């Protein structure tokens, strides 16, 4: 059991790191479009933009 957990650990760590990477890329990527959204969407929808 302990040996199995040890084997799974790198895989879990890898997955967690990858998910963090995905979050980082997605957040930074979509934030680029703030100015464009401000110019296209109604004001009531964009007044609380990040």
């Amino acid at each position, binding site marked *: 059991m302990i040996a199995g957990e040890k084997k799974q650990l790198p895989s879990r760590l890898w997955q*967690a790191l*990858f998910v963090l990477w995905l979050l980082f*890329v*997605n957040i930074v*990527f979509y934030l*680029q479009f703030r100015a464009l959204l401000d*110019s296209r969407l109604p004001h009531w929808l964009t007044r609380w933009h990040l």
Partner: protein
Amino acid sequence: MAPLATLGVLLSVAAIFAVATSFGLRILAWSRIEAESPYETALFAAGLGFLALELVAFALASVAFLHRGQSLALLIAMALVAGNGWAMLARRVAAIWRSEAKPSVSPRWKLARAALWASGAFAMLTAMAPLTGSDALRYHFTTALAARGSRSPLRFDILHSFFTGEGHALIALGLALGSDRIALGLICAGGLLTMAVVFALASRLMPAAWAWVCAATFLLTPMVFWQISVSGAPDIWMSFFTALAVLALARAVRDDNSRWFVLAGLFAGAVGGAKYTGWFVAAAVVLICWVETRSARRMFLCGVCAFLAGFLPLLRNFGVGGDPFFPFLMQRLGRHTLAPYTFAAIVRDTRSSLFRLTFLRLLGFPFRVTLDGGQYGLGQLFGPLVLAFAPLLVFVPWRKPVARMAGFVWLLFFAVTALTTQMGRFLLPVYPLALALAVAGAFEASRRGWRVVRVACVATLAFFLLFSAGADLMYARDFLPVAVGLESRQAFLDKMAPDYQIAAFINGELGGRPGKAMVFFQHVYYLRVPFVAADPTDSRAAGELVGQGPGKLLDLLRRQNVRWVVKSPGFPPGLNDAARKLEEENILRPVASSEVTDFAGDRIYRRRENIRVVILQVEKNRTGRPK
């Protein structure tokens, strides 16, 4: 009337597609080349047929001999040569249709495919709006239009005309057949064909459902949707030929078959013939050919075919400008080059605003092209998927030739782009390869039972698909009403085409009057009076006048038979002093003016500003030189 006209244009595009594909099928049959499925054979045939069409149309357009009669004759000749290719086309269409309509195909799958083709139809409908793309109005379409009535499509007052390649032959063909909307339809057809070849490429690396996601993502990616619908740039054909070259080369290596090497070389050359940077794709294909086969003979065969398929624009540019890669090799070839002001502006135009060749900048380019795309040639419009899934590339089945070749071509082209231009949108030719590999990595990782990775990847894909679909819909909103006849062409162009109101004012004032007009704005496609473009950043003669006195400017006006000079709103920085001097001395005399509106900055932000346009008449009777 508008819906009927749109239908006529769509039928014309479909007819050209059928002629090209039948012709390609006949050539494939004659060469005894058969792909693994009717679907792939049809794609290779379309590639071969459109390449042949491009080559002949380009040759004719280069000598300004592509008019309506010649275009129709070319298409009829291809249709006749196609012979039993028509029957083959019918059989393949029927075979594809049967496989789609099989009762064993699940309704969900049918719905998914229908949604994909509906998205394609939506892009095609958007493309039916009148031409408004900025670069298209500057040179993609203007060059083809300007060829009428002159001996060459190349103009030294629009130096970007030298950047037109074989893909532009389809634009010239559409215009010669009578409509810029046929040309736009052919560009969109190139996009739909690329989507189909992305599906074929992805199917080699993942199951059909994932391949569908890959193809749908490709089509909806904002960069692709913009390029194939309203941009008026033929670059998407580079993506099509790049993906076909990789597929053909993978088959060539697997079967060690010379015919497939020839085909791969031809498609690689088609990419080179489209744009200077396309030669890096051709070089990558030829190089990987040697890496995979270690055969100089195979590599030579592939290279010669690539050269034959793409050398025509180089020959034309060498003949007219003295440099096959005009104007970038002028100095090295020891020829009289452009004025430093103009050359620097052209180099600047081909590079991103933050271009720098430092180690840190190169290291950061793969990240910043996606995450800070506004500074790197609109790289953000490709979406985050390739960067986001990049760590998963280690799981791609690299043992498969198609994966290795796609990876090599992508890597080499990406590296060269980082070293030469750092322009995100120049990566369009290899985007199908990058996307297919990135999604293949996500599929392989999720197959390992990594549930968290699978969920995260699917969520990222789904969110990007939704975002892209929303963005495309929002973007297309301005273009659809005119395409379906709910808005007049005039009102649409007034609102959406940059510099259109200036061009319309000039047409109204100077139409039918003798003499040429000198203009300083760049979007000259809708000008219908004889003109000399004099933006010093894109005109050889105007560039040479930068920093010179008014006498030289007056010489140019007289030499080029310029009777009118248009201020909109002022003169360009390099010519301002000289032109104002002529104005002060009444050699340039205002005869008409108007207040118009135009875009302030990028059109996508919709900000407009008022501009005063003044037409000045060049005083003919004044002799001597200005003080």
